[in-house]
């Protein structure tokens, strides 16, 4: 019995001494952390996507507090709401740029691109990119193995099973750019979200000469320059047989979309146009 009593005394005594010591030490060596860091962190998405350039959300919060202003700091994941919230906490103004969203610059669906082979190796674009031109002869287009899908922590990307091309979900994409960094063919670009999400872009990355590009893919930009001639805002440049639309200069008039002979220029989120037909519609009336 005395053995049990002795053991309780020793263990309990050690516990009490350790507790006292720990509480003294925790008071003595207390590190005062900026209370704003926790506040800011609560506004951030907490996905640690790295889109801000910091190692994670906590590091970004620390960086915001240390800098004192928000110049050059942006959380693409949290977007405008988060940045405005942070600005309010810090008592500074938020001069953040427009929200950005990832766009895939390839429209070479399975039936548009000539298939050269079937790949059944490890499902990774990075590996397929080292095996030559991939499953088609286009060495610029989407490989469709989904490295970008794996890289996206916001679940905003998927590979469309019919087209075999990566598709971005606007509502989920935060513009963190993780997909852009991982794409071995560099076909993902961050473009301004645009008013009500309206955007116009060249959905092709093919730099081959027109005739060659045509053979590789029916939807390829052939660098004909029609779009740049029709554009009244000087927003379109053609270099290396590939057109590029400057999103800042673009006024979303969509003339280029209609004029492109290969439908390589895409538009999105525009309200549906009303269709006025000049053709006599009335086969019924003719019969009657």
């Amino acid at each position, binding site marked *: 019995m005395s053995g049990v009593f002795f053991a309780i005394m020793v263990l309990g005594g050690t516990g009490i001494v350790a507790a006292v010591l720990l509480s003294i030490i925790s008071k003595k060596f207390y590190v005062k952390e900026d209370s704003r860091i926790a506040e800011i962190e609560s506004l951030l998405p907490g996905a640690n996507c790295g889109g801000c350039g910091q190692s994670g959300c906590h590091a970004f919060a620390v960086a915001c507090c240390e800098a004192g202003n928000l110049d050059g700091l942006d959380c693409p994941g949290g977007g405008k709401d988060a940045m405005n919230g942070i600005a309010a906490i810090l008592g500074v103004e938020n001069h953040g740029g427009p929200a950005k969203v990832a766009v895939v610059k390839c429209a070479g669906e399975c039936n548009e691109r000539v298939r*050269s*082979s079937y790949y*059944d*190796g*490890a499902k*990774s674009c*990075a*590996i397929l990119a*080292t*095996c*030559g*031109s*991939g499953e088609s*002869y286009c*060495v610029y287009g989407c490989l469709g193995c989904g490295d970008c899908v794996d890289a996206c922590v916001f679940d905003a990307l998927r590979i469309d099973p019919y087209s075999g091309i990566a598709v971005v979900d606007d509502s989920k994409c935060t513009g963190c750019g993780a997909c852009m960094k991982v794409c071995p063919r560099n076909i993902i670009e961050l473009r301004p979200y645009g008013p009500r999400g309206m955007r116009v872009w060249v959905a092709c990355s093919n730099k*081959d000469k027109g005739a*060659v590009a045509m053979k590789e893919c029916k939807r390829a930009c052939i660098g004909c320059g029609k779009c740049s001639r029709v554009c009244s805002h000087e927003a379109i440049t053609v270099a290396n047989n590939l057109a590029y639309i400057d999103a800042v200069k673009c006024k979303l008039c969509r003339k280029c979309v209609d004029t492109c002979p290969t439908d390589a220029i895409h538009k999105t989120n525009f309200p549906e146009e009303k269709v006025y037909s000049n053709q006599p519609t009335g086969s019924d009336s003719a019969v009657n």
Partner: protein
Amino acid sequence: MGTFKKGGIHPPQNKLTAGSPIVTLALPRRVELLLSQHIGAPATPIVGKGDIVVRGQEVAKSSGFVSASVHTPISGIVKKIDTVRNVAGQPVTAIIIEADEENHLADEERRTNKTRVRSDEELERLTVEEIRAIARSSGLVGLGGATFPASVKLAPPKESKIDFLIVNGAECEPYLTCDHALMRESGDEIVKGVELMRRACDAPEAIIGIEENKPDAIEILAKASEPYAAIRIEPLKAKYPQGGEKQLVKAITGREIKSGCLPASAGTVVHNVATAYALYNAAAYGVPVIERVVTVTGKDLSRPGNFLAPIGMRLGALIDYAGGLREDSGKVILGGPMMGRAAINLDAPMVKGISGVLVMAEDDSHRRKEEPCIRCAKCVDVCPMGLEPYLISTYGRLRLVDEAQQNGARDCIECGCCSYICPASRPLLDYIRLGKKLIADKIQREKINK
């Protein structure tokens, strides 16, 4: 009989063409000569559109220390210098030459009646510098498949003393028999080529390593090398990947090449028997590398065989000589089944590095379904470099570059033993290659940042 100690596998040999003689193919009327058929800087064209060229003429010269020149196998007119697609479907620059009937007949005549430019006595008097110059001017590259410019390897760094010239006649890849056929038919020429190489590297001894499954080649080369005291034949136990540089050096000399080092660091230089033959051809007959022996094989082909094929001919035509592709053929692999790469474009031209064209039947050409790793460590057992493939491949998949590097990803020789043996059919080598590529990218980035 020796072999390397660590790892290795015994895949089914499938040497369908082991007894086939080398068939000389008719010269094509049109060739596409790629400027980059070797490791290193692409060659620079020295002919232009409309130029008349003669068989064996240099059409593109080497553009650096690690580079090799390109010669034309047919006489004719340079049609254009244009972008064509290589076997992997990538656009590359090529010189396109076409021959007419007159050129064609003259070329066939030149080909059958080769004239000596140097007698055997003159060959013996060649200086080291002259031998290296011949290798350089004839566009000689490692014909085992690596296509590293041979003139660089024939001039080992001065600070490393070369004790052995190792000549690779192992041909450990299943299906391939091109080196075997060459050793059987041209033993004397190979040995004379080896002697030239030995003198160029200043090695006191040259050893030709041949696997025991080629007894006729061992016998023929042993006989041919009798007059040369410095050359001997070393029969080796058959095991894949015996033809790997580091494995071959270990098997023959017992020496270990340290991680990241060249064979010269262990006092050795390794060349292929086909390279030795090509060097002799260049020195004795003045014929540069414009043709090579290729094994065209596969269970799907009606006439598989070993062919002497001109560089620049269409690969599809080469397969047609062996019976042609069947409607239901699964895939075409360039090189052997273990290390070769699947071809995307069969209209692509033949290049110096292609030692075999393997046509796989539909049933054999699909990968098995990938299953989870069961931690059996078979990949560790068979890795000839003593690495842990399951671990490096996981790091590659997760893009953990530093971890992959620390675990020796760069020592991987990409022999494919791990993927072959894996009972869960995991694509181990694919991800290890990815890891190696990411490491190379990282090193490149660091170099630029400096």
